């Protein structure tokens, strides 16, 4: 079985500052990794994903995440945040060959960007 740990329940940051949202996972098999974003009163939007290849993946709005197999991490970073990045961010893992493609989510990190 897989599990995901997001240690920070809330991360306050000032606009234009850098941010890192931490995600660690546990799995006995190889995994695919995802970050989803949820804006207030909205659904889940895929932010970025790691399936294979380059361990550094980027989104269209400036976020990036790096898959680190040795540290079992997939931290999300952005060098300069905007007010509009305020949202809940969920890390999720999908295990190869275990179960039927179900995503296992972390508890989420609320990013609060203030002026």
């Amino acid at each position, binding site marked *: 079985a897989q599990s995901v740990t997001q240690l920070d329940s809330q991360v306050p940051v000032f606009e234009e500052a850098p941010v890192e949202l931490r995600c660690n996972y546990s799995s006995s098999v190889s995994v*695919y990794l*995802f970050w*989803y974003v949820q804006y207030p009163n*909205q*659904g*889940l*939007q*895929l932010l970025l*994903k790691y*399936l294979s290849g380059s361990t550094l993946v980027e989104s269209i709005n400036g976020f990036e995440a790096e898959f680190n197999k040795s540290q079992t991490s997939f931290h999300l970073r952005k060098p300069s945040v905007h007010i509009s990045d305020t949202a809940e961010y*969920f890390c*999720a893992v*999908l295990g*190869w060959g275990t*179960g*039927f*493609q*179900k*995503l*296992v*989510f*972390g*508890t*989420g990190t609320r990013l609060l960007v203030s002026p």
Partner: protein
Amino acid sequence: EPEVTQTPSHQVTQMGQEVILRCVPISNHLYFYWYRQILGQKVEFLVSFYNNEISEKSEIFDDQFSVERPDGSNFTLKIRSTKLEDSAMYFCASHDRGLGYGYTFGSGTRLTVV
């Protein structure tokens, strides 16, 4: 861009009543899921569905829950006798092949049981 559509966006029901949450997955997708998110908590897997049958379900998905793909386009989640603790956001998801490709979520149905 293709979307997974969920209706209604918000449903209020009395405890003990049956509810049906509806989803229209992306048309060429073959794998379907329901997840739920209790307010302020993480998103939890409920059930997966492929080839007109349940392929996996969580311990949350007890006998009060059922899923159906009645007409080849809709994918429904039924709760037979709702309880207060069923109040949550329910998300439908689908994808077209295995291993995480094209995994798309709907915008969710907020179910409130009173």
